[in-house]
C-alpha cells in the first residue's frame, strides 16, 4: 500500500492556503479575528452589563452591534478588494 509518507515526489508543492499571501489579505484576516475576539470570552464579559444604555438599548446589545458592524465592514472591504 502506498502511504502518505511514500509517494511524495509527484505531488505539486502548493503553498498553504490557510495563510493569506497578500498584505491586504493578511490585514483583512487580522481585522476580522480582532473583531471576532471582542465578541468572545475574555473580552465579552467586560461588556456584559445593562448600563450605560445606548439609544435605549442595553450596553451589551449595543456593544455587540458595534462589533458585528465592524466584522461586516471587514467582509465588505474584502469583497470590494476581491481578496
Amino acid at each position, binding site marked *: *500500500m*502506498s*502511504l*502518505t*509518507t511514500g*509517494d511524495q515526489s*509527484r*505531488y*505539486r508543492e*502548493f*503553498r*498553504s*492556503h*490557510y495563510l493569506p*499571501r497578500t498584505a491586504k489579505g493578511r490585514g483583512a484576516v487580522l481585522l*476580522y479575528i480582532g473583531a*471576532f475576539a471582542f*465578541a*468572545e*470570552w475574555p473580552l*465579552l*464579559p467586560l461588556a*456584559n*452589563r*445593562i448600563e450605560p*444604555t445606548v*439609544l*435605549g*438599548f*442595553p450596553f*451589551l*446589545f449595543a456593544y*455587540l*452591534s458595534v462589533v*458585528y458592524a465592524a*466584522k*461586516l465592514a471587514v*467582509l*465588505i472591504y*474584502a*469583497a470590494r478588494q*476581491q481578496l
Partner: protein
Amino acid sequence: MEPWVVALSMIGVYLVMTLLLGVVANRRLEVNLEDFLLCGRRAGFFVLYLTMVATYHSAFAFLGSSGFFYTHGIGFWVAGTWTLMAGAITYVLGPRIWALGKKFNYMTPADMLADYYESEPVRVVVAAVSVVFTILYIQVQAQGLGYIISAASGDRVSFEVATAVLLIVAATYLMAGGLRAVYWTDVLQGVWMYVAVWAGAIYLSYELFGGPLQLLDAVREQRPDLMTIPGPRDFFTYPMWFGMMIALSFGVVLQPHILIRYYTAVDARTLKWLGATIPIFLLTLFIPTAFVGLGGALAMPGIAIPDRIFPELLFAYAPAWLTGLILAGATAAAMSTLDSILHANSAVLTRDIYQRYVRPDADVGHYVTVSRVFIVGFLVIGYILSVYTFEYLVILVTLSGAGALQLLPAVLGVTFPARIRLTATGVLAGIGVGLAVLFLTLVVWPHPLTLHGGVWALLANGLIALLVSPLSQAPSAATVNRIHGAIEELVYGAGE
C-alpha cells in the same frame, strides 16, 4: 369575518402564490439533471441572495428565536456571531466549492469529497451524514409549520392536518419546477418573512409599550435578568456562546442544501459578495424577534411553549389581517428551508446512491423522476417525525447543525491545500469518532464544561483525522494536483 378566517385566508393566498411560481418554473424546466438539481448553474446575485437567506433562516428564526429571547433574554443576540461567521465561511469556502463544481461537474458535496479522496465509502458516508442530520431539519420545519397554522386557526385546524397540507404544497412546487421553483419561491419567501417579522414586532411594541425604546425601558425595570448573559436560566454561558456560534455557522453551511447552492452560482465573484452581505439580512432579522421575545416576557409571562409567543401575541393584540400577513411570513420562513432540504436530500440520494449504484446508465428523465419519488419519500418521513414534539426548535437545529459540522475536516482537506494531506481513512475515522463523541456530549453528558457538544465532537474528529491520515493511503498525486491545482488557479492564478 372571524379573525382566524382572515389569518388563514392570508396564508392561503401565500400558498397559492408559491404554487403558481412552481408552475411557471416547470415551464422553464429543461429535462436534464443539472437544470433540475442545480438550476443550470446560472443563479445570479439577487436570486442567490434571497434563496440563501430564506433557506438559512427557518422556522426557528421566526418562532424559536422569539422563544429564546422570551426565555433566556438578550443572550440570543449571540446569533449575530454565527450569522457573520456564516457569511465569512461563504466568502472563503463558497468560491472554492463553486470552482471545483464547475470544473469537475460536481452536483453534491459527496461528489467533491469522493473524487478528491478517491473513495466510494467516503461518498456513502458523506451522503448518509448529509441526509440523516438534515432529516432532523425537515422535522423542525414541519413542526414549525404545524405550530403556525394551528395557532392561526385557534386550534381549529389540527397540528397534523396543517403540517400535512404545507408539506404537500412545498413538495408539489418542488417536484414541478426543481431547484428553479425553490429559488423563485425563496425570493418571495425571503422578502415576505423579512417584512412580516419587522412589521409584527414594530406593531406589537407600539401596541403594548408605546414603542421599541419604551419596551426596552420596561424590560430593564421589570426583568433586568433578561438584559445580560447568561440569562435567568444560566443558559448563555461563555462556552455555550462560543459553541453555538461554531455549530450554527459551520454546521448549517456544511449541510447539503447550503453547499449545493454554492455550485449553482453564476461565478465566484457573486459568491464573495454573497458572503459579505448575507449577514445583513440574517442578523437584522433577530432585532425584531428580540422585541417580540422580550416584550412577550412582560406582556404574556409563563406561556407553556415559548416558541409560540409571537403568534400568541399577534392573536391577542394585532388585527386579523396583520396577523395573517405575519403568520404567512412565518410559514414562508419554514417552507423556504423545508423545500431546500427536500430538494437537497433527494439530490444526494439520486446522484450519490441511485445513479452511482442502482442505475448508472439510465436516461436523464429517469433520474429526474427518481428525484421526485425521493421528494415524496422525504415528505412522508418528515411528516411522521413531526408528530413528535419538542419544546425548543432551536435545540433541534443545533443538533442538526452539529452533525453536519463533522464534515468540516473532510471539506477543508479538499478546499484548502496544505502541507498536511488528509486521506479517506483519516476523514472516515474522524467522522466516525466525531459522531460518537457527538452522541456522548449531546445525549449522555450534555455539553461538558458548558462547551457545546458539537465542538467537542469536532475537536475529536479533527484530531483523529490528523493522526490517522499520515498512516493511511493518500489520494493519488494526480488527483491532488488536479483538484488543488484548480483551487490554486482560482485563488491565486488567472482566476475564472
